[in-house]
């Protein structure tokens, strides 16, 4: 018998896709259903909560008249079309559900493509009778399944809280299609670099850009750049207008992005080597620079690219958002009825300040996310066996941990300072008095640092005491705080619940009053949590 006769059926590029999809679903069997469940429940419960809180058409109209036209709230939540329960639900959670679905699909796609490839697992899989495109297809199918599951479940649950069936379907599909669009974007990101971390950063960066584009577009007044919302997959959800004469054709936009993205990803994947990105690795230094001499030098070297990316993203975002604050004044100038309503609330300055304060809250929450991810890098280093060679040298555990903690704290402070200065610059350049605006916005932004540090300290605490749970626990804490900050007031949560979030205790600047005591307490709390965490780290096993 010849060798050729012994080869099995030829197979195609897709051979083994079914197996790999089952493997991906098996690996995500807890996270994926949990994500789908939480997103479905959040949207459904919001609809139910709004129904309880605003039972009459009049009360809903009042909410729509104030909240739906407030530029700060439009920046955070998006457009509001009409005053029906469905429209309010779409405004309050439609875009955010899209963000959550997109986050889920981005993590799923990168995890089953570039992460596996970087770790060498795909090499093992690829050596079996598996087609060249099978792994990418399996990852896309898994992510798409999650998006479709959210859409299908929402189609069923929203009518249960008495929302019109057609509108419910439109909203559910808009949210699901948003997830599909970012599935395509993540597939492209996974092809670009050889590092999963960078690939994830690119996809999340695209999500951030989409948020800001539609944020500026949604909050822009008449004559402002409201067309920007059309440039963002996140904007398309509310542009579908699910409960106010749905524009079904808008659903075609995310589907087109999905198809273009996956097509491009397959094209790129076919042109590169296994394990490589689009850019070849260049040779580096043969010896280390003087700066790379201790754990701090190492932490800086590992994190500098990421921090630079964050700083750039912050600068661009907040200059744009600051500049958009000027447009808010113009919007109010056009409508006398609204003008009266807002004068009653405190006038134009108050509205602009509320918008700027909401921006600073967002800057604080995202800076907390940066700090947490930098601290959790310690855990990644530990489980990746890269902490071991460092700790086997004359480097103590606390010093090793502090190298990343200092970077997290300084980085978060830097990001907030950049947010403040950029917002002040953007607003000041259009509204005048740049120096004054930069000064007061920088102060307002840094007021968000203590609560962000409390969240970072929680990450240190779990890393020291309960390392196995540190990653989910730290992100859950952030998720809880984000939920309270964004949705607490509208859902009229009790003060007790609101007080859990450290951001509730930070001053609402600009426009609010500042008292030093809560900030001081937050700093002390952060210090205490971090100290307990470090004490735990000194006692526990490494690895």
């Amino acid at each position: 018998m010849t060798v050729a006769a012994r080869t099995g059926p030829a197979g195609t590029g897709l051979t083994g896709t079914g197996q790999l999809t089952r493997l991906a679903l098996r690996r995500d069997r807890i996270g994926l259903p949990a994500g789908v469940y939480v997103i479905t429940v959040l949207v459904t419960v919001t609809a139910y909560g709004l129904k309880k809180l605003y039972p009459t058409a009049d009360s809903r109209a009042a909410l729509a008249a104030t909240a739906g036209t407030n530029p700060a709230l439009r920046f955070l939540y998006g457009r509001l079309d009409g005053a029906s329960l469905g429209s309010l639900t779409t405004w309050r959670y439609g875009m955010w559900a899209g963000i959550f679905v997109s986050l889920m699909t981005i993590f799923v796609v990168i995890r089953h493509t570039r992460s596996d490839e970087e770790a060498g697992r795909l090499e093992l899989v690829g050596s079996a009778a598996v087609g060249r495109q099978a792994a990418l297809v399996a990852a896309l199918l898994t992510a798409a399944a999650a998006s479709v599951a959210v859409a299908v479940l929402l189609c069923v649950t929203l009518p249960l809280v008495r929302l019109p069936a057609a509108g419910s379907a439109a909203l559910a599909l808009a949210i699901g299609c948003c997830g599909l669009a970012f599935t395509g974007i993540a597939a492209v990101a996974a092809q670009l670099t050889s590092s999963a971390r960078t690939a994830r950063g690119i996809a999340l960066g695209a999500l951030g850009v989409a948020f800001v584009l539609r944020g500026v577009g949604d909050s822009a007044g008449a004559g402002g750049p409201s067309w920007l919302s059309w440039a963002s997959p996140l904007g398309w959800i509310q542009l579908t207008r699910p409960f106010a004469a749905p524009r079904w054709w808008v659903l075609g936009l995310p589907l087109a992005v999905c198809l273009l993205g996956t097509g491009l990803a397959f094209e790129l994947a076919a042109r590169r080597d296994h394990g490589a990105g689009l850019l070849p690795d260049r040779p580096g230094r043969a010896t280390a620079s003087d700066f790379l001499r201790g754990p701090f030098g190492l932490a800086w070297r590992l994190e500098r690219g990421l921090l630079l990316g964050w700083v750039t993203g912050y600068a661009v975002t907040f200059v744009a958002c600051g500049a958009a604050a000027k447009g808010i004044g113009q919007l109010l100038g056009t409508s006398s009825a609204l003008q009266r309503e807002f004068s009653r609330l405190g006038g134009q300055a108050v509205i602009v300040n509320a918008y700027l304060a909401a921006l600073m809250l967002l800057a604080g929450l995202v800076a907390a996310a940066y700090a947490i991810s930098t601290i959790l890098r310690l855990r990644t280093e530990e489980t990746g066996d890269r902490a071991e060679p460092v700790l086997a040298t004359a480097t103590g555990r606390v010093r090793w941990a502090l190298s990343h903690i200092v970077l997290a704290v300084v980085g978060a402070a830097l990001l907030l300072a950049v947010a403040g200065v950029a917002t002040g610059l953007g607003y000041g350049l259009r509204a005048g008095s740049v120096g004054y605006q930069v000064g007061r916005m920088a102060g307002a932004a840094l007021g968000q640092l203590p609560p962000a540090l409390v969240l970072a300290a929680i990450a240190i605490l779990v890393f020291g005491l309960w390392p196995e749970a540190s990653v989910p626990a730290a992100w859950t804490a952030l998720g809880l705080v984000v939920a309270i900050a964004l949705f607490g007031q509208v859902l009229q949560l009790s003060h007790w619940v609101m007080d859990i979030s450290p951001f509730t205790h930070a001053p609402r600047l600009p426009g609010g009053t500042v008292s030093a005591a809560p900030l001081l307490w937050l700093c002390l709390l952060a210090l205490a949590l971090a100290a307990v965490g470090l004490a735990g780290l000194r006692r526990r096993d490494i690895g």
Partner: protein
Amino acid sequence: MSDAIEIRALRKSFGRTRALDGLDLSVRAGEVHAFLGPNGAGKTTTIRILLGLLRKDGGEATLLGGDPWRDAVGLHRRLAYVPGDVTLWPGLTGGEIIDLLGRLRGGMDAKRRQALIERFALDPTKKARAYSRGNRQKVALIAALASDAELLLLDEPTAGLDPLMEAAFRDCVNDERHDGRTVLLSSHILAEAEALSDRVTIIRDGQAVETGTLAEMRHLTRDFVDAELAGPVSLDGLPGVHDLAVQGTHLRCEVDHAALNEVLARLTAVGVRSLTCRPPTLEELFLRHYSSERTSAGARG
């Protein structure tokens, strides 16, 4: 001579798994000590306790006269470590990592660094992401060997090296021995331990089952005899003869040292055409310790 490493009745459990169950180990200053055992025997756990990364549950461990947990940082200035599974920072080059680890340890010899890079034929300008497993191993080895540490802890250091590089590694360890450095070499590659080590400790299921020089261990064991004879011979029933196999005039068996004289006398009485008599390889010692069938067969014989 003082002991560089002194371990008595060391215990460590991970949940219900007992990794170390009363381990004894002593490594004398200036010797190359091989620490042999199959995967999962507890070698890496022992080294991690010595590095102060894991906390012992019971027993005593002394490293260079200090407590490995309490005095970790001070002790680490005096030792260098090569992990069994070397993972590096993907974005740093090999050269950068060697320098970084040297500096973290408190200094390295630049000339020796260069000589080792040439000896191991490593390209220090490549990013760690692009290194093969053997090249990652080389980075960690060069960083450790270029340091002026008095103790080297090497956890399966040649896994992933090709035979040429393995030879280079052996030369390096012999140089270290001449410089008076202490080496603890954990391994399951027996030829390596046989070629390099002064003394050996064999570990199984978290306990040391045997320790000593190879000469001392062979003393306890048998020689292998393989002979081509002029005529048939019968060694049946002779005390001290094991695993006897006779095919015509070809004879193979294992013989206790005490019985060797008697066996040779009987063979020469028949007439010997060729004779091989050799001590067991470490491989065979190893098999005897780790294969339960052989252990019980030995007990019967």
